[in-house]
């Protein structure tokens, strides 16, 4: 047999084994402690810290006259910290105890408590607690460990559905939004973001910086100590160009209209600022604030999200005649004083086209033609001026092109004309010209486009890009972003043409179809329109602008009432109220008329938490022209919230 290994050598073998193993251990130590150190450090940090995020108050949205359209209210959430080795029955008992005061189902509570226990992470059990619930919970807190109430800021829209289509609403993020915002940091999976409208478009400015309680917890999730309690930084305030009184007038008008459906867009023709932006029916963005994940999509489906002002496209009908009129006068083929006889119809050879007035208007010149909206005058003149010139003017006035307003999903409408037809490799018929000239046929426009068009007439050529944000003010009171009137084009017409159109529009209001819009002491220019609708009652249009004396026009408005039957009857009065509201400072009846809005009286105790000083900023009511708004007095900004808020502040 083999020689046995001598004894001392055997000990050496064991020793070799020991140091070889030591070498192996050393490599492993280097690998874990040196090479993978960062990875393990991160894991250790994650282990020991828990964060309860507190969402920052979003920036407020304030109308140009100082009304608070959207604010943040303190809200109280119930948080559960999974405690030390609690028996399984604990969650059941706690759920049973909480179900009453919270008004929630016991099963729901139980499942969310259990989830918190198994995941060993603190969880929000309930949001937006009522005062009575809070009292109940503060008593339960002494009996059951692990529950606590934290303060957060919650979006609040004091006026409910007011201006809803412009403001939009908020909700929890979907996957796409998470991909977009998640990378920016500061968003948690349960953060709410603006889903539509201004809330979405100005998400970045409005958001602010979330705060949070950073806690050190032990292996059982028990709070060991608070590492840091980071205060939130509120978001920037947005000052709208929208005037609350004008807006109220518009919404009230639509609500009381024949169908209750429609849109009003009022612009300042001097810069394109939006004074009112209404689309009916609206919705109450508050209704989304407290909905849970599961309920949100269902709730979102129910609301009339369709923003008629920028998404509804309709034949502009007779208000298109303003564009046609411009084309006539510019073409040089029409003598404005020449009279055309209207027997009530026009025989185009293959087909007879009717005037809206079956009896006929008799002899009409340019001014009468527009004032009475005589179709026959437009058929005859349109054929003479030619469809190309009309299409050219329509293009110049922005038909078929989005206005560029900063809202998502704006529709472009449709430009109708021979060149467009040609690109589709189709023919242009005489009948098309006749349809084109009175704004029927394939021409489609949104109320916003028509507002821009009428503002262009009012400003004699400036095609504004409508904007609704006057400026964005940081919590420190600095203006981050201020309005910049922007033109998307210029309509170049001869001054005589403008003069004639203005005269015709004036005559329309004074003597023609636009009489419902007459305002005493104000020069009102306007045009009615009644869009034929094969699916029901005709849609009513009214486009107008107004000025005081010889001054510049200060308000231009386009009104659409779906199924409103006649532009003169249903859209005109709305336009009148809107213009009155916009010019109220000049009209000034000695006691200022109670604003047509009902909202003022229904303002809830608008508890705005300003994560700052705790004092309420005075509601600024600037009663000058919205366009020439003076700088708003510096508001007390500074973060550092008084979380108690200013409940009970009446107005």
């Amino acid at each position: 047999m083999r020689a046995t290994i001598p004894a001392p050598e055997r000990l050496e073998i064991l020793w070799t084994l020991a140091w070889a193993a030591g070498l192996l251990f050393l490599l492993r130590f280097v690998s874990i402690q040196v090479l993978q150190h960062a990875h393990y450090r991160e894991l250790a940090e994650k282990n020991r810290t828990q964060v309860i995020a507190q969402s920052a108050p979003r920036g407020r949205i304030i109308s140009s006259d100082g009304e608070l359209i959207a604010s943040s209210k303190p809200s109280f959430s119930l948080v559960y910290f999974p405690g030390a080795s609690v028996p399984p029955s604990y969650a059941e008992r706690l759920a049973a105890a909480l179900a009453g005061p919270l008004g929630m189902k016991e099963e729901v509570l139980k499942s969310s408590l259990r989830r918190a226990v198994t995941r060993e992470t603190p969880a929000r059990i309930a949001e937006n607690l009522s005062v009575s619930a809070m009292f109940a919970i503060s008593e339960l807190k002494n009996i059951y460990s692990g529950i606590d109430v934290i303060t957060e800021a919650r979006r609040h829209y004091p006026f409910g559905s007011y201006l809803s289509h412009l403001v939009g609403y908020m909700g929890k993020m979907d996957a796409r939004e998470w991909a977009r915002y998640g990378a920016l940091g500061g968003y948690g999976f349960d953060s709410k973001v603006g889903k539509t409208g201004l809330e979405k478009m100005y998400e970045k400015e409005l958001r602010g910086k979330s705060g949070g309680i950073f806690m050190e917890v032990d292996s059982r999730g028990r709070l060991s100590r608070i590492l840091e309690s980071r205060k939130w930084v509120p978001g920037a305030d947005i000052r709208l160009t929208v005037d609350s009184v004008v807006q109220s007038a518009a919404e009230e008008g639509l609500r009381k209209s024949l169908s209750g459906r429609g849109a009003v867009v009022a612009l300042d023709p001097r810069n394109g600022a939006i004074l009112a932006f209404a689309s009916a029916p609206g919705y109450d963005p508050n209704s989304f604030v407290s909905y849970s994940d599961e309920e949100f999509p269902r709730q979102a489906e129910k609301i009339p999200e369709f923003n008629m002002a920028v998404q509804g496209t309709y034949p502009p009908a007779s208000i298109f005649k303003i564009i046609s009129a411009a084309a006539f006068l510019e073409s040089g083929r029409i003598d404005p004083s020449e009279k055309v006889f209207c027997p009530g119809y026009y025989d185009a050879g293959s087909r007879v086209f009717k005037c809206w007035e079956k009896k006929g208007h008799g002899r009409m010149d340019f001014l009468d033609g527009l004032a009475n909206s005589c179709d026959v005058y437009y058929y005859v003149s349109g054929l003479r001026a030619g469809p190309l010139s009309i299409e050219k003017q329509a293009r110049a006035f922005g038909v078929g092109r989005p206005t560029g307003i900063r809202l998502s999903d704006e529709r472009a409408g449709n430009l109708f004309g021979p060149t467009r037809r040609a690109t589709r490799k189709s023919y242009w018929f005489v009948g098309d010209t006749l349809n084109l000239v009175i704004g029927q046929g394939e021409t489609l426009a949104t109320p916003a486009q028509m507002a821009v068009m009428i503002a262009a007439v009012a400003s004699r050529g400036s095609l504004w890009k409508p904007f609704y944000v006057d400026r964005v003010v940081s919590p420190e009171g600095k203006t981050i972003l201020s309005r910049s009137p922007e033109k998307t084009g210029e309509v170049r017409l001869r001054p005589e043409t403008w003069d004639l159109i203005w005269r015709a529009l004036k005559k329309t209001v004074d003597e023609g179809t636009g009489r419902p819009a007459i305002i005493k002491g104000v020069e009102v220019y306007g045009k009615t329109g009644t869009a034929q609708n094969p699916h029901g009652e005709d849609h009513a249009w009214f486009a107008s602008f107004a000025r005081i004396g010889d001054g510049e026009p200060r308000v231009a408005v386009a009104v659409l009432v779906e199924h409103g039957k006649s532009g003169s009857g249903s859209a005109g009065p709305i336009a009148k109220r809107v213009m009155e509201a916009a010019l109220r400072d000049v009209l000034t009846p000695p006691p200022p008329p109670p604003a047509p809005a009902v909202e003022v009286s229904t303002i809830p105790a608008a508890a705005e938490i300003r994560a700052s000083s705790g004092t309420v900023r005075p509601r600024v009511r600037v009663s000058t022209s919205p366009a020439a708004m003076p700088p708003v007095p510096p508001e007390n900004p500074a973060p550092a919230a008084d979380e108690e808020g200013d409940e009970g502040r009446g107005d």
Partner: protein
Amino acid sequence: MLSRVGLKKGRMDWVILAAAAGLLFIGTLAVFSSVGVLASYERIVRTHLIAIPVALLFFSVAWSLNYQVYQDQWKFVYGLSLLFLAGVLFFGVMDKGSRSWYRLPFFSVQPSELARIGLIVALANYLDRRGGKMREFGSSLGALLLSIPFLLLLMKQPDFSAILTTFPVVLAMIFCAGGGVAHIAIIVGYAAVSALFPILWTLLAMSPELAQNPLLGFFAGLSSFGWDTLLFVAAVGALAWFGWFLSVKLYSNLSGVFFTGAALVVIFGFFSGMLVRNQMKEYQQKRLEVFLSPESDPRGAGYNLIQARIGMGSGGVFGKGVFSGTQSRLGFVPERHTDFILAVVGEEMGFMGTGLVMTLYLTLLYRLKGAAQLARDRFGYLLCCGIFSLYMVYFLINFGMLLGFAPVAGVPLPLVSYGGSNLVATFFALGLAESVYSRRYALV
């Protein structure tokens, strides 16, 4: 031999004491830090502070006495150790499913720690006496039989981790005494078979889909006594006989003893495995499962190892500073002051700390080896071999456990971990080694 090992003359090997003191110092810091937030903080600190002087007393006593006394009185030492160990089954307290502690007014005593030193003494004496006959199988078997009462008593407690640290020491001592490698292989093979079956059954219990396999299903059925058992024994016997038949036909010079032995090893291993399986407590079962797949249950048993590693990894090179390890102080690292003390050292003192502990440990082992080689007689040599292999086993298992090379067996790291009995026993063992060293060339 003096010149070969290069040790200086002296009454005592100060390096051993220095290394032990260094380890004790680091360990004390880590223990105090890791228990800082526990409710039992005061008790642990008090026990530790009592244990240190007691341990030094034991060290001095062991060092001053001539170690040869133990050889003369080996029967007394062996008997006392057995009695001490057996007594715990009657007078000990039940804690966490095992009865391994004597509860005394101020502290508890774990008899297995000191009894193990007694076993080493007895084995050293026996293997010394067998001097010239070490190549006989009987010598190895005798040493094994000498330790069997200890192992059975430990199994009765049950103290799985004590078995895990004691059995390899027995093997190492037989090896160092010059026992036949083949004999050791037989013992190892026997132990392996008896360990293999419980592992196999545990595996099958963990993943029942494996039992669908007919062969594995058959093995699964073997865990309880029945006709299958007889069939298995017969099959092993037949296989051995066939192997022998084949080797005869092939004119191989393997003797029939080899095949008989192999069959006997497998069969006895199998029955021992069955015994072990039926004796195994649930937590030991759990530990076995974790060793087989540590990642399977991140919140359960495997969680411990992961958390320990996170603690160690997060320490980096220089550590987070003593008393500021979050993983250990907040309780993420389990058994932080005992089995996973090294994770605490790693977190708070970083790679520097773990590297230092390892260096000190290797230094200690190196000097223990030196003491063994310097011993003036075979008994001293074997005594030091036993002590050396005991701490080597601790070193390998505890480090290996934390680093994922060995099962999470609940084996502490002597001198660093908290544990009064272990500390006293360790210093006593080091004292014995110093006694051997001191008396390397002088007649006292």
